[in-house]
């Protein structure tokens, strides 16, 4: 068996595999974010200072690009997941490649808009 590397091997593969690999990758990113998020919230049990210290290291203007990338991972994962659900219900199977383009485009549009709103809200641009 090829193992987990089989999820990320793209040589000789089609667009489907690229979408699949990105889905796995963004899933791992979201899992790591979830762990960090829950760790931050759990730190409240230690004390408010600990929580504030954690927050002050990550919630800064310099880390906004990372938040933006997190949005990108979230929207890609969400829209691609929707595509997979549709295909797995046997819907739009023949249009599976067009659906990849459509869902990726929707993910990118949502990402750009959310990043714009985030910067607008936090910096007043």
């Amino acid at each position, binding site marked *: *068996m*090829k*193992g*987990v*590397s*089989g*999820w990320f*091997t793209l*040589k*000789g*593969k*089609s667009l*489907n*595999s690229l979408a*699949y690999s990105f889905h796995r990758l963004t899933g791992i990113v979201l899992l790591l974010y979830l762990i960090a998020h829950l760790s931050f919230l759990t730190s409240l049990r230690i004390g408010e200072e600990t929580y504030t210290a954690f927050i002050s290291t990550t919630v800064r203007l310099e880390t906004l690009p990372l938040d933006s990338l997190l949005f990108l991972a979230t929207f890609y994962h969400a829209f691609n997941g929707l595509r*997979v659900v549709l*295909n*797995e*219900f*046997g819907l739009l*199977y023949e249009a*599976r490649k067009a659906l990849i383009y459509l869902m990726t485009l929707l993910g990118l549009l949502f990402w750009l808009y959310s990043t714009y709103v985030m910067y607008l809200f936090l910096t007043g641009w």
Partner: protein
Amino acid sequence: MEREVIFRIRRFDGEKTYWQDFRFTARKGMTVLEGLYFIKENLDGSLAFRASCRMGVCGSCAVKINGRPRLACETQIFDIGSTLEIEPLDNMPVLKDLIVDMDGFFRKHEAVKPYLIRRDDDYENPKELLQTPEELHAYYDFSLCIKCGACYSACPASATRSDYLGPAAITAAYRFCADSRDEGREDRLNLVSGSDGVWRCHFNAECSEVCPKSIEPAKAVQRMRLMSAIHMIKSIFR
């Protein structure tokens, strides 16, 4: 038209894996399988590969060519380029050079009962089982599978779980479940409804992309999944 080509072959001698390059002059229309035979007959007689019909029917010569599983007999050298990287199929143990052990692959195929099941089997008094063209069309495409293992090699779910039935076996199960003459649907649905069956598929659909017979195994798996879901819901109320 003739051109010098390089066959970069991933070899395995039972202990170690290594790449070996072979240069030779290929002519227009020459297939990868003909190239492999040329190497075996003229450059290195120890090269091991599997082949039989040479016309895309038996499925024996499936190998990875530049990362993509293909039938060597159906792939022309010039369609690929001047340098061809040839490897054994993934997700199956390599025995020697390009030969993989397909035993597990065939055991999975066998496990889904890929044959017509009838309750009224009577070999003394056989009867004709009629079908309409529509009934034939419901499964015909899926009956064209040649069990080459290309789909199994490309499947990322098969890459991580050795107990996953894989696209070829599930396609075979669907082919018979969709056959109007068959009466073994319940048996097969019980076999493919587990986590090692249809629910393990995460719809990469690469199996459909690489299938040399274009039979769309991913479509069969998703149809089987729907059938399985209905079967599971019905079984709750039984």
